[in-house]
């Protein structure tokens, strides 16, 4: 994957396949500690211990169409290349938490990428699932919650193009405010 936003788009598909109704995405940028942390947490069906142990192995997948699944394996590789690592914890019936840590200034750390586009794409593309996105940078933070958005929209679908554009603007302006973009 070229950047963190695409990793998020990819890993979140796992949560959606696991029938999650709420997916939390958290990005923490700690410049003094030179650390970037990405956490994706869902309330989906979770994994058994035996499956969890080999979850980052490319030859592990739940899909039936073929035998390889690269998503977590690629994220793990990218995290390790940037002097970080990947941790996955899960409990059947409760959900799954994926945590990736990178050295912020590492030359091999993937760039943030089009995080605004990805969050909007997820929110609009999976209207039956809620997303809670937190971005923290040096003590400041921004929270985007689709439950709040849907509350405002009433019966207008979140997938409507004009709503997509508005959400894009909303997230972009707020991330700029906390100097993420």
């Amino acid at each position, binding site marked *: *994957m*070229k950047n963190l936003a*695409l990793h998020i*788009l*990819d890993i979140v*598909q796992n949560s*959606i*396949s696991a029938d999650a109704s709420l997916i939390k995405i958290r990005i923490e940028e700690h410049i003094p500690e030179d650390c970037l942390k990405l956490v994706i947490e869902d309330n989906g069906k979770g994994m058994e211990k035996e499956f969890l142990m080999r979850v980052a192995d490319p030859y592990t997948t739940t*899909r039936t*169409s*073929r*035998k390889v*699944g*690269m*998503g977590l394996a*690629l994220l793990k590789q990218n995290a390790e290349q940037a002097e970080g690592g990947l941790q996955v914890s899960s409990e059947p019936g409760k959900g799954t938490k994926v945590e990736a840590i990178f050295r912020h200034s590492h030359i091999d750390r993937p760039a943030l990428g*089009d995080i605004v*586009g*990805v969050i909007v*794409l997820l929110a609009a*593309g*999976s209207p039956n699932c809620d997303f809670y996105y937190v971005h923290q940078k040096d003590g400041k933070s921004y929270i985007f919650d689709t439950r*709040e*958005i849907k509350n*405002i*929209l*009433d*019966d*207008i*679908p979140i*997938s*409507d*193009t*004009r*709503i*997509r554009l*508005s*959400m894009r*603007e*909303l997230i972009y*302006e*707020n991330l700029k*405010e906390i100097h993420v973009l």
Partner: protein
Amino acid sequence: MSKIKTLADLKKMKSDLQSKVELRERADHPDSYVQIKVGMATSGIASGAKEVMDFLIEALEKRNIEAVVTQAGDMGYCYAEPTVEVTKPGEEPIVFGYVDQDKADEIIEKYIRKGELVDGIIPKNYQSIDD
């Protein structure tokens, strides 16, 4: 219009939406619109599916074509990513492979608008090697 920065701005924007009735109808009758699914599994994302989806949403809006674009999981055609499935109202779905922006543009102009078939269709009866 001023920039949308808070939820209150969004609320105001929403109440300004003139075609609210039309929007509601769209949600109620998805079958009457062109439905497009973009394959968004690891292989799709790595080969540019997100950019293709962004392009499709923008292009369809600009050209005033009523369509619903969503992401789909794995379609099983990894060798041909990015893949896009197009279902025109009352017709069978068709899956196109190797879709970049030029191909997406061709699909909109030729297949969706004029009903002409374009290169890159993945036959429905294709079975992957594992099957």
